[in-house]
């Protein structure tokens, strides 16, 4: 069975585990997902399963999207993502639910888009220490300081960490333990935090580095 799902982040709370300890949990509305296409080495050169998630109105999709989805019996779906697999018995139109994919105790990687922080300074973006605050220093508490050597080198190294756009990028939270599964409401609870804000799309996969 495919160990992967698409979901929507609902938010964080805490629940009590089997030992009675309170543990932090992120709830995800995971699935139901529909297999919209199966990529094969013969056809596309690699094997993967394309999953769709998020039922919507058909008027919200373009003709091309609808045409693609109409090849299967899937309803109109907002999000399509591919999961690489070695081989699969899944066929287009199959439905994948939380109970099929994950159980309590499994370890998963959760991929999402982090919250955008806008143009962020070097202290926030790269955890620089900033400058001194006292001893007569007035205009350099959050500055990067020196960014390179002098005229001898005469340049700034590529990749030098500086201020710039932060967040709103793909982030993977690895090795989160599944603490809660509710097949009826398609809910999945993982221990710890998950990238992105509430309502954001997340991809849940079997953990790569267990």
């Amino acid at each position, binding site marked *: 069975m495919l160990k992967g799902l698409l979901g929507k982040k609902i938010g964080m*709370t*805490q*629940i009590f585990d089997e*030992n*009675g300890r*309170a543990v932090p949990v992120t709830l995800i*509305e995971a699935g139901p997902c529909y297999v919209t296409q199966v990529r094969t080495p013969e056809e596309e050169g690699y094997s993967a399963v394309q999953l769709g998630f998020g039922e919507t109105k058909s008027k919200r999709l373009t003709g091309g999207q609808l045409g693609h989805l109409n090849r299967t019996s899937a309803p109109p779906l907002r999000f399509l993502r591919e999961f690489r697999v070695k081989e699969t018995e899944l066929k287009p139109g199959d439905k994948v639910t939380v109970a099929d994919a994950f159980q309590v105790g499994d370890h998963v990687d959760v991929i999402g888009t982090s919250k955008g922080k806008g143009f962020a300074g070097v202290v926030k973006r790269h955890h620089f220490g900033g400058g001194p605050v006292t001893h007569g220093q007035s205009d350099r508490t959050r500055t990067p300081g020196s960014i390179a050597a002098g005229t001898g080198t005469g340049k700034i190294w590529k990749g030098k960490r500086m201020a710039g756009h932060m967040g709103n990028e793909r982030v993977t939270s690895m090795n989160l333990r599944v603490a809660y599964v509710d097949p009826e409401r398609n809910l999945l609870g993982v221990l710890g935090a998950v990238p992105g804000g509430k*309502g954001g799309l997340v991809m849940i996969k079997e953990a790569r580095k267990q």
Partner: protein
Amino acid sequence: MDDILRSVEAPVNENIPDLGPGDVVSVHVRIKEGDRERIQEFKGTVLRVSRGGQNSSFTVRRVASNGIGVERTFLLRSPLVDKVVVERHSHVRRAKLYYLRERTGKKARLKQKIQN
């Protein structure tokens, strides 16, 4: 979406009455020993009640042998708390009774509150 979060959280423990600072209580704690479960009592004075929904807690202080103070904090919705029995209420003028930590003997007494 908050409704979904609330539905997953632990429910309010019906065996815990409304607690306030100064209450002398006996907390019945479930303790697992291997595959056996037993109940241990922890008796003392409520030092504080911290309200915060799912994360609500209360702290109980008792003076063990040799005058050593022992404090334990319990989550109000923890499944480990079987029940709480309030033995008496005290008349206190503060929400957090941290000053009891520095007091021993007669000075650490609290006046009983008679409820009408």
